[in-house]
């Protein structure tokens, strides 16, 4: 079944690209501006764990491990404007200005026991983080076919400035001898102070570009990987939230997958971005 679907996909893809093979869409000197939007999924790659508890959290999972939510459940979004300039027939320089939100969440379980009565108390607390950045990805895009419909690959860097880090948590205390307490949701706070103001990631991906009249659509997927880590080693504890949250951020790099759609319009005089056949 899987093979059949794959074959079907490739047949459609070949048909689509082949149908435009007669027309040449030269990107050279094209200057375009457009809008971009999409969703993304985040996986924090932990390099060092931190805890406010010493010697370590008394966790039912053991040690001071935080249990991070799976990649596909950490869905954020991003959107903004994009400009591009065709350097050669196939090679295009693109610059984007995005509001980009990474989301991640993890759970800590704290446990205490009363030796005399044998009862135990656990506190399950799930932390939600929304890392909001202004990102300015600068990438080179290579359109493989330079036709109306063309697959492309692209790569570049994505500098970013932190806008805010919305943090909240949901917790529930449970006693082995009492009914469970109500789940409590904390108010959202800004933990921007615990993050580096500047963040940089490598970005690269692939997709499909196609023209509909003068308008160009880019449907693609980008992967991002932190070159600089987002969390601050200096201010991990210093913004005062550690004592309120019973937690501080681990040291991690971000692996992120972005799925997006960009709509580009040609602008300017001679480099109006017209395909040759126009």
């Amino acid at each position, binding site marked *: 079944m899987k093979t059949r679907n794959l074959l079907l996909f490739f047949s459609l893809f070949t048909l689509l690209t082949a149908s435009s093979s007669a027309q040449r869409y030269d990107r050279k000197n094209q*200057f375009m501006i457009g809008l971009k939007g999409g969703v993304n999924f985040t996986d924090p790659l932990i390099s060092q764990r931190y805890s406010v508890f010493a010697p370590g959290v008394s966790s039912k999972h053991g040690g001071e491990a935080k249990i991070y939510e799976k990649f596909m459940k950490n869905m954020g979004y991003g959107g903004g404007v994009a400009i591009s300039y065709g350097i050669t027939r196939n090679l295009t320089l693109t610059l984007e200005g995005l509001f980009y939100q990474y989301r991640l969440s993890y759970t800590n379980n*704290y446990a*205490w026991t009363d030796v005399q009565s044998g009862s135990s108390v656990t506190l399950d607390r799930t932390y939600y983080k929304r890392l909001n950045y202004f990102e300015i990805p600068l990438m080179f895009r290579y359109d493989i076919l330079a036709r109306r419909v063309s697959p492309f690959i692209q790569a570049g860097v994505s500098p970013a400035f932190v806008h805010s880090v919305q943090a909240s948590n949901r917790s529930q205390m449970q006693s082995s001898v009492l009914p469970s307490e109500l789940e409590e949701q904390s108010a959202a706070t800004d933990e921007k102070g615990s993050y580096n103001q500047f963040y940089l990631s490598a970005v690269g991906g692939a997709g499909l570009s196609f023209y509909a009249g003068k308008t160009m659509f880019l449907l693609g997927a980008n992967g991002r990987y932190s070159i600089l880590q987002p969390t601050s080693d200096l201010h991990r504890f210093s913004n005062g939230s550690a004592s309120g949250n019973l937690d501080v951020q681990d040291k991690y790099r971000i692996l992120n997958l972005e799925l997006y759609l960009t709509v580009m319009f040609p602008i300017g005089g001679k480099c109006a971005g017209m395909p040759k056949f126009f």
Partner: protein
Amino acid sequence: MKKYIYLFLFPSLCLLASCRKDKLPKNMEPGYFKVYDDQASANRYRVLDVRETGDGGALILSELNDKTIHLVRAAADGKQMAAATISNGSHNPLGSLLFINGAYYVGAMDETGLFARIIRVDENYCSAISSTDLNGLLYPLAFSEIEEGSILLLSYDRTNYRSQLSRVTPDGQVIWTQNANVNQDTETQIVAHLNGTGKRYPFYTATWNGKYVANCFYNYSFSFLTFSASAQDAIYNGSNYNSGTSAMYALENGNAAIARFSFGQSYLQPSFAPASGVADLTDNMGGALIDDAAADSDFRFGKIVIDKTNYIAYAYNTQNGRVCLSLLDESGTLKARRYFGSGENPFRIGNFRATADKGLMVAGSFRVAGSFARPALFKLNEKELYEVVGLDYEKAQKE
């Protein structure tokens, strides 16, 4: 064509220009916050004092379950190196951890004889190395280090109903003892104070302008007394046992900063002038009401130097379960304030100390999830301390 290239170039250059990674100045470590947890839910820790150790770490003294002596040894980065109780027949640790001639001392009471005991502790293993009994001094209530490596010890004579201020040595020699008659039996209050079943009185000892200070029961009241080595000097009586001083700090100009309590409210007198031979009331010491202080809050004083400026710092517990650290300049004007803890996890002051790296450590009891009282330690580095008084560290270093 060029104008389009500029469209790419300008943002890119702006970005590169603004790319900078936050860096700590050389030889400065990040601050931290640590909770020294214990899985036993029934255990309650009341932090009393903290001392910086030679390696930049900390030794935290607590009272476990209103009785047992407990020590935590933290490394320079806050990680726990050791934690242990000292159970050599001693309990009810006094509120100070002394550092005399390179050794750490804890004061406590003998479990059965009720006399004072001075215990020398190993800061690395949180264990007792040796101990000295002061058999004639019952109900030890406070002690502090004074000149020439000796100790000022406050105790209570249950037979003659009097407070006793003694100068003793760490090896148990009693140099002198001064008595202050209470005129009524206050053993019940003292037992309740020690067991945590009643009001905890801010007993303390100190030195001030060559005089010895005892904050203790005296003449049907809780009083602030000064002594010479041979006689009683000034007397400031509280209103019965409902008012008195909470803490004092001797200033370099001969005055003292005094925190006092009166029927649950707290006041701060930043500069109280000494008077010899007077008999007055603590309520006449003056000072401004500290409205957000918790009822009968503990107070701690200390000196902090930031950017070559001396600050008198005092810390107290607030009504919403935090610790407020306030900084006064030498004229007694409030210059800065910083809160520690959160209402969700109340934090109660143990003590704070300036550190050798020009930072600050604040130790106290932290109620995890509002329930479990645990020793906790905040460490601010020098840069963070600059931020407390609104200074930019890098800028200040260049000037």
